[in-house]
């Protein structure tokens, strides 16, 4: 991978990524990744690698924390004690995943407080899908099954990435998510094989969540040198369209199998190419929601702010002014 250390002065994008990097260290770094080795926090790394990883892991952590809110909506009214216990356990898992991911991001030098502040001031993003309301119990079932399924597709791919602490966190997370998926599927199947009212309820939830689910994997990637570099550095492990396709391949047949429909008449698998074809979801809506104008953005951030504020007196009472912060090791 030596060739990549060379910076073409004509190429503005590559230039901006690696221009100020030591070419020898960069070559060593790239050959370590190419050989399938992991990068650890104390290793030398290009500034852009660090920046993109912090952004990605932090967004992932925020998504786990905010993602607990739409599902948490139904804890108080879960149908039956067993489902209530299971939902509480799932929501607790998600918060735990947030903690694991924040710790991984911190190894790159950004403090927990700075990440929290960037979340509540709207500076950093989280998964768009959590800016939609969970209107009925069936919504919580669809989230637990299909949003978690989408997350697992992404997370399994990312766990093969190059940054050690992120991979280790993801291995732990994926193991726990398999319960979420089963729990969600069980809930959807229960409704889909139930009374006509229950079937209508889950179909309605599916109709409402389909566009956010298609948005979940992000807009089609532009073929850019920036993307290519991030792929070579194993920061990005596949294109958004590849991830979406993998998800459709695994879950659309399972949805149809229950006699449920999806609100896209063009959705089908092209048997020749092996790829799914569909109507592009409205990316303008995606942009609107990610920029703060979704149905629940305001509520999600306000709730998060309030939680932080409500915990402050406890933290103050426990604080020891003599303690110093040291970046976590791995």
């Amino acid at each position: 991978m030596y060739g990549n250390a060379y910076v073409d002065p004509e190429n503005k994008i590559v230039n901006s990524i690696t221009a100020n990097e030591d070419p020898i260290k960069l070559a060593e770094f790239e050959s370590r990744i190419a050989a399938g080795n992991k990068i650890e926090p104390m290793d030398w790394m290009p500034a852009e690698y660090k920046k993109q990883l912090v952004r990605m892991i932090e967004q992932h952590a925020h998504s786990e924390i905010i993602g607990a809110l739409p599902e948490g909506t139904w804890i108080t009214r879960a149908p039956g004690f067993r489902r209530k216990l299971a939902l509480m356990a799932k929501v607790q898992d998600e918060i735990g995943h947030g903690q694991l991911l924040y710790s991984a991001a911190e190894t790159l030098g950004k403090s927990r407080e700075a990440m929290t502040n960037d979340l509540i001031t709207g500076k950093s993003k989280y998964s768009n899908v959590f800016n939609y309301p969970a209107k009925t119990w069936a919504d919580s079932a669809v989230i637990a099954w299909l949003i978690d399924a989408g997350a697992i597709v992404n997370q399994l791919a990312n766990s093969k990435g190059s940054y050690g602490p992120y991979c280790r966190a993801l291995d732990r997370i994926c193991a726990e998510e398999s319960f979420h998926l089963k729990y969600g599927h069980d809930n959807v199947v229960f409704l889909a094989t139930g009374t006509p009212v229950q079937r209508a309820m889950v179909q309605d939830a599916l109709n409402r969540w389909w566009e956010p689910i298609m948005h979940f994997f992000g807009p089609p990637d532009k073929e850019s040198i920036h993307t290519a570099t991030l792929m070579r550095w194993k920061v990005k492990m596949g294109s958004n369209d590849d991830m979406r396709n993998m998800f459709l391949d695994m879950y659309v047949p399972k949805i149809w199998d229950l006699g449920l429909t999806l609100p896209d008449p063009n959705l089908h698998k092209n048997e020749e190419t092996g790829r799914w074809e569909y109507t592009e979801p409205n990316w303008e809506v995606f942009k609107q929601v990610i920029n703060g104008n979704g149905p629940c953005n305001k509520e999600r951030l306000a709730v998060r702010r309030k939680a932080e504020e409500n915990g402050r007196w406890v933290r103050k009472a426990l604080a020891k002014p003599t303690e110093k912060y040291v970046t976590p090791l791995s």
Partner: protein
Amino acid sequence: MNIVSIDPRVTRSHIDENTQEGIANPMEHFQTYEVFEQKKRGTHHIHVGSVHAPSAEMAMIFAKEQYSRRGQCVNLWVVKTADVFATEYEDSDIFDTISDKTYREPEAYKVIDRIQAFKERQKAN
């Protein structure tokens, strides 16, 4: 205006939708502790990650919730990150074994040939 949500817990909290509260101060979330987990008696404790906590006792509570919520665990350690003295990856050549130290490796000791030769000599006598 307070937020009215389909989550009754949110509505009950009377949260101003334009609240500016919640900004965290530096160190407000405390220092970190490194967590070591032992899965089974007789095995090593293995490092599994870190937690933020104001004391070792609190770190232990968080570590238990975060790292031993699932699966087997028989023992946990927490150690202040600041108290861990670690090597640098850049210096990993210090672990290389140089050739003239093979006397420390088990493979350096080959006695079978000598024993065989000895036995044959004995027979010949």
